């Protein structure tokens, strides 16, 4: 969906560089970053950490009817990916023939346009993944 300029700007570290965070108390990584560690809550020591760019497909779907802003992109592949550190992330899958997309397939992050420009002309860029 289309997002306002401030929201797009706020999310640049997360969407461009997979920046999440990590709780030094319970050794758990989070993406997107959490303000409070659900395991340790206020005792948790959260520090910024980029997620690994590689992972594997846990589940996937081919979407034929998208939300607003995706009319020209359908059909597209969406996947739930488990990154090498165990953190899961939802992302589009690109640049792969259908036969190569399956549960367990190894993927890596690429940088792509997610949605066309909004009314302010801001284009939503971010991560997608491709099968390697």
């Amino acid at each position, binding site marked *: 969906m289309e997002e306002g300029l401030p929201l797009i700007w706020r999310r640049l570290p997360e969407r461009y560089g997979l920046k999440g965070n990590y709780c030094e108390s319970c050794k758990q990584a989070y993406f997107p970053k959490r303000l409070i560690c659900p395991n340790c809550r206020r005792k948790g020591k959260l520090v910024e950490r980029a997620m690994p760019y590689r992972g594997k497909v846990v589940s996937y779907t081919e*979407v*034929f*009817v998208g*939300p*607003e802003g995706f009319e020209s992109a359908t059909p597209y592949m*969406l996947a739930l990916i488990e990154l090498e550190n165990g953190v899961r992330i*939802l992302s*589009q899958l690109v640049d792969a023939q259908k036969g190569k997309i399956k549960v367990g397939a190894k993927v890596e992050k690429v940088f792509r346009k*997610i949605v066309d420009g909004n009314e302010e002309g801001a284009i939503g860029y971010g991560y997608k993944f491709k099968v390697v």
Partner: protein
Amino acid sequence: MKLERWNEKIKTGEGEKMRNVSIIGGSATKFGEHWELSLRELITEAAVKAVADAKIEGHEIEHIYGGTMSPGKFIGQEHIGALIADQLGLNPVPATRVEAACASGSVALRLGYTAIASGMYDIVAVGGVEKMTDVGVEAAGTALGAAGDQETELFHGATFPAIYALMARAHMNAYGTTEEQLAAVAVKNHHNGMLNPIAHFHKEFTVEDVMNSGYVASPLKLLDCSPISDGAAAVILCESERAKLICEKPVEIIASAQASDTLALASRKSLTELMATKVAAKQAFEGAGLQTKDIDVAEVHDCFTIAEVMALEDLGFCKKGEGGKFSEKGKTKLDGEIPINTSGGLKACGHPVGATGVKQAVEVMLQLQGRAEKRQVDGAKIGLTQNVGGSGATAVVHIYKAKVGKR
């Protein structure tokens, strides 16, 4: 965990200070594409019919709770609580709008329940409504997608069918569930919908029809998905002792439980179960002192066929992973082991999101009062509803028991 404290409260009798609450009347509008009706007309029709069904006067209502998900996006109107009281001519009765995505109706019901159980009020009206067809399908999909995590799901093009499709694929991968088994859920619910006058669809489908209906988000096809509907439902709640004096067949709410989970699917440990449903179900069964086998009839949240399969497992009607086979074998049909979604469910009765939870309660009320006509489950005494918000970030389970009132 809090669950243990809650159970302890029940055991020690501390919980007995709460009063019992019964449904004394209820009704729903026809569900469907109502181009001729607006939100205010839908909720007014449901409310007026519910008040008439309860044989009370509108001025006896002490509080109104109205469940609705996204009227701001669907019709450009917020402040629905006040709108309902206004339209019903009941000002200055307090009226509160309740939102929990597709579980808005059940959360409204639960708030009505707590308002009476607490002793604050004796008679409360609970409504649910959604007017979805004033906008196009992409805009409706975007509004519904906001029930998930906007920043990490909807932004990337994850619609609700897509999120449930990811769960369906994971379930198929883990347990061998097949697309044909999912189709059996849709076929059964469309059959039940044929018998329900308010259902959005009155059309039978075969497994083959479902299999040929085209992917919306693979492996889910068009006929695996609940429709975009307009509709409203309402129930009148009353303190149980008083309910017995004014109602022939009150339906007591013997358990009300709600749980939450992460907004985003990716943050959850399991893709093949809804933790919130399991927690709410455990609380509800323990609170009522019952087990799954005691349930005679249930309305579960089948926004997609895979959702009904997971609900069967999470509520304990069958073992984990066997929901597909259980459905395919016909165990959930009207004459099966446990009739599920006698109304036609979200799939065939329709899914005006805010109305759904209240409609589930209306259907169970009709079943327990013996008023469900052609879809009546013989001798149904105990019913259950399970209503889910988003992809499982909210789940609400209610258990109901038929009671005998005056005469």
